[in-house]
């Protein structure tokens, strides 16, 4: 096994036992990035020089006996996280030459934990999309089939993890942008509760929804990274003061006390047959292991699409106003089609006379959806459903489909607008060899049960053949 193929846990272990150095680990990743970028386009910017420097520093620290949760671990970070002195574009040419003078809180916490930053990953421009095809730097390609999309908007992050270009990655989700690409790329993607991880320094998309989180090879790796990221940030007034759990120490739980809710509304018409089968099989496996399965009724997820579309685009129209051509180098002409559409939609929805009809009404329905989940969680601990109704779609699928993202994300939007915690975990491969993902949703600040349920599934399926398969690149 090559070093870049290690999980975060294995890499930490190896560094601790001095089986290899952070420099060797980092170089293995950088070489894989170099080899695969022409095929995958996972990165907008690769920070090779500073990565090597940081790895050397980490090696020295390790030699000095320093112990940090991510010391010497190479990571890739989505390009909407501000990185001091490293170009941050959110995959838009508007910010082609923008170099932030400050680190986002997430990046600062990762640095304090000892991370080696490999580079900034590709995404849908401004995180507007679920394909990474709207990137001004070209689409990212799915490592399992480079004729297919990674999903998005954290497509570069998910792809880089699936292709072992990195040990783990950071993404951000507004509604689906972590879980959906994780599903299409066959990796673990954790979307924390809104307010659990700081948004400070993340180029805003839907401010009342944006949730940064890890994309990893295993559930345990996500837990380790979440421990580093989570918690109150004085620079983000919407972060929660709730104490942070030692997620990685709470992964094992008694499966027999777990109540899993299944809602028929999430096995929608038009869902890919293989996706449906694999997710149902996965639920069956959890049941056999002792979990109690309850059939519950949730609102049809289609209502969430309207709510999400209105709220997110309204916020987008305001958030993008600052790129007025005065200060960031490029003018508004550099906005892509999707961004322009969203700005126009949001501006319209917030206009006087329409506010009550659209934004206000959407907020009211949002409350109804939140209550719907609250009721459900009185009966069950988690809800399980497919993450995406389809397998990874071919490159080019978003052409002339302005609502592509909303349709691809229909199953994750309700929990996003309710600000819940959730995760995507791989449950197998299709006959065509494409990954299939399943989501586990829990109440707000339910990361512990999300992770322990995911960990349980990972443990009981450890020996299955598909787990040993890797993308052939």
């Amino acid at each position, binding site marked *: 096994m090559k070093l870049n193929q290690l999980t975060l846990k294995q890499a930490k272990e190896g560094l601790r036992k001095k089986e290899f150095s952070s420099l060797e680990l980092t170089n293995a990743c950088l070489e894989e990035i170099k080899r695969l970028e022409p095929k995958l386009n996972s990165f907008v910017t690769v920070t090779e020089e500073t990565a090597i420097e940081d790895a050397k520093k980490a090696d020295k620290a390790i030699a000095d006996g320093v112990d940090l949760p991510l010391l010497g671990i190479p990571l890739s970070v989505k390009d*909407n*996280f*501000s990185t001091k002195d490293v170009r*941050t574009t*959110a995959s838009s040419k508007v*910010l082609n030459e*923008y170099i*932030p*003078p*400050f680190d*986002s809180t997430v990046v600062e916490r990762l640095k304090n934990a000892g991370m080696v930053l490999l580079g900034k990953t590709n995404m849908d421009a401004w995180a507007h999309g679920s394909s990474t095809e709207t990137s001004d730097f070209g689409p990212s390609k799915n490592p399992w089939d480079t004729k297919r999309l990674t999903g998005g908007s954290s497509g570069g992050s998910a792809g880089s993890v699936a292709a072992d270009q990195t040990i783990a990655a950071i993404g951000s989700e507004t509604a689906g942008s972590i879980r959906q690409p994780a599903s299409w790329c066959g990796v673990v993607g954790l979307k924390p509760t809104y307010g659990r991880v700081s*948004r*400070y*320094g*993340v*180029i*805003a998309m*839907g*401010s*009342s929804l944006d949730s940064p989180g890890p994309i990893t090879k295993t559930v345990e790796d996500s837990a380790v990274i979440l421990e580093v990221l989570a918690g109150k940030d*004085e*620079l*983000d*007034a*919407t972060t929660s003061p709730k104490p942070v759990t030692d997620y990685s120490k709470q992964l094992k739980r008694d499966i027999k006390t777990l109540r899993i809710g299944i809602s028929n509304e999430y096995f929608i018409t038009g869902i890919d047959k293989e996706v449906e089968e694999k997710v149902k099989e996965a639920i069956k496996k959890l049941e056999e292991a002792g979990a109690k399965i309850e059939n519950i009724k949730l609102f049809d997820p289609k209502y969430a699409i309207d709510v999400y579309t209105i709220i997110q685009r*309204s*916020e987008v*129209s*305001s958030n*993008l*106003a*600052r790129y*007025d051509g*005065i200060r*960031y180098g490029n003018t508004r002409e550099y906005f892509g089609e999707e961004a322009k559409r969203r700005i126009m939609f949001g*501006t319209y929805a*917030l*206009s*006087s006379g329409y*506010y009550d009809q659209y*934004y206000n009404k959407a907020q009211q329905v949002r409350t109804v959806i939140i209550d719907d989940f609250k009721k459900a969680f009185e009966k069950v601990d988690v809800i399980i459903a497919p993450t995406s109704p389809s397998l990874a779609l071919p490159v080019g699928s978003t052409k002339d489909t302005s609502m592509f993202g909303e349709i691809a994300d229909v199953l994750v939007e309700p929990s996003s607008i309710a600000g819940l915690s959730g995760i995507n975990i791989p449950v197998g491969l299709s006959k065509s060899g494409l990954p299939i993902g399943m989501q586990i949703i829990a109440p707000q600040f339910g990361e512990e049960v999300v992770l322990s349920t995911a960990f349980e599934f990972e443990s009981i399926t450890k020996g299955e053949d598909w787990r040993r398969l890797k993308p052939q690149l």
Partner: protein
Amino acid sequence: MKYKAIIGLEVHVELKTNSKMFCSCSADYFGQEPNTHTCPVCLGLPGALPVPNKKAIEWCVKIGMALNCDTPLFSKFDRKNYFYPDLAKGYQISQYDKPFCINGHMTLSNGKKIGIRRVHMEEDTGKLIHETVDGIKVTLIDFNRSGVPLVEIVTEPDFETAEEVKEYLQKLQQIVRYLGVSNADMEKGNMRLEPNISLRKEGQDGLPNYKVEVKNINSFSFVGKAIDYEIKRHEEILESGKTPTQETRGFVEKNSSTVSQRIKEEASDYRYFPEPDIPPIRWADREISKLKSQIPELPDEKLKRFIKDYAVTEYDASILTKAIEMADYFEEAVKIGKSNNLNAKQIANFIINRKQDINNILPAKLIENILEATKTEKVSETELEKIANEVLSKNPQAILDYKNGKENAIMFLIGQVMRQIGKKIDAEQIKAVLTAKLK
């Protein structure tokens, strides 16, 4: 035809908090090197987030409380979206439908109550500087002021004259200074004034179908001039059978007139929506009562108390309560004066008539000075008797006047005795001697 002016007022007061409204940059921007008091937040850099300044919010609420407003337990910030190069984020964080304070009033000296519609919190913008650099005309942006806390106070259209507006402004300035929340320094732009004016025919009800706003005036006297100018202008237009245009005008100092700046065909659409980056504010009752308890005695009450407790005239009391520093100083001096047998009236007279510099003379020193100034010398009874007799013999007319009931005549005689003695002695002592002799 007779017209009645209907005037409302919007006042922006810049708070003197140490830090800005949503970041920890220093809010003391005046006269500083451009763009030195900035950070990602007040520059509106991608991803930076606002964290509200608790003190600024409390101060805003205190202004509202001092203006007799209600403070709803639920409040929130909103985004006011508009484009201007000095607006770093492309929107201003302000408050729309849930301001911190509503429904207040201020009572003017003529007994009229001016309604306060709302008192809300927002952030200041940057400043554009138009300059020629290397022969090219350019506009530069200084973001030092960006994000400085502003409180906007909006009245009902209850004023009828420029005089009422000016009195309101003076009182408002006095109140915010009493609260210690703003320097309210007009020259530094700490208070910006925007009157809106319209006229209706006497005897008619309701608001006229137009309104003219005059923007960003920075002196009370200019507001008065702008209002007077507008009233006259509207009268002329109305007399000619037309209606003044609904518009925004600017004040021109050099001839005390106004000029049209922007014609508002319809209300601007700011696309307000709740600021998602700042959770709504939910006050607990005890927080509100705590803030209320921190409101100091305000000028009106203090004035009444001074007249009552210290037996000073209304005029003196108004001078003594104009600034809280003076009022506190006076009361401190009264306390010290008490143990020196000086009464409040004597102290008030001394401070006012002798224009004491209260910043440089401590109250205790002031009392010493008063005692020094009123110190009298002793003179022997026999000498006093002798001089009194001399004075009386030289002034038969005064004696006659006194005996005819002119009480003032005795004051003249006291003066004569004092002059003869050539020393400062207790007037009461002389008076006693003289009246005894005149019995």
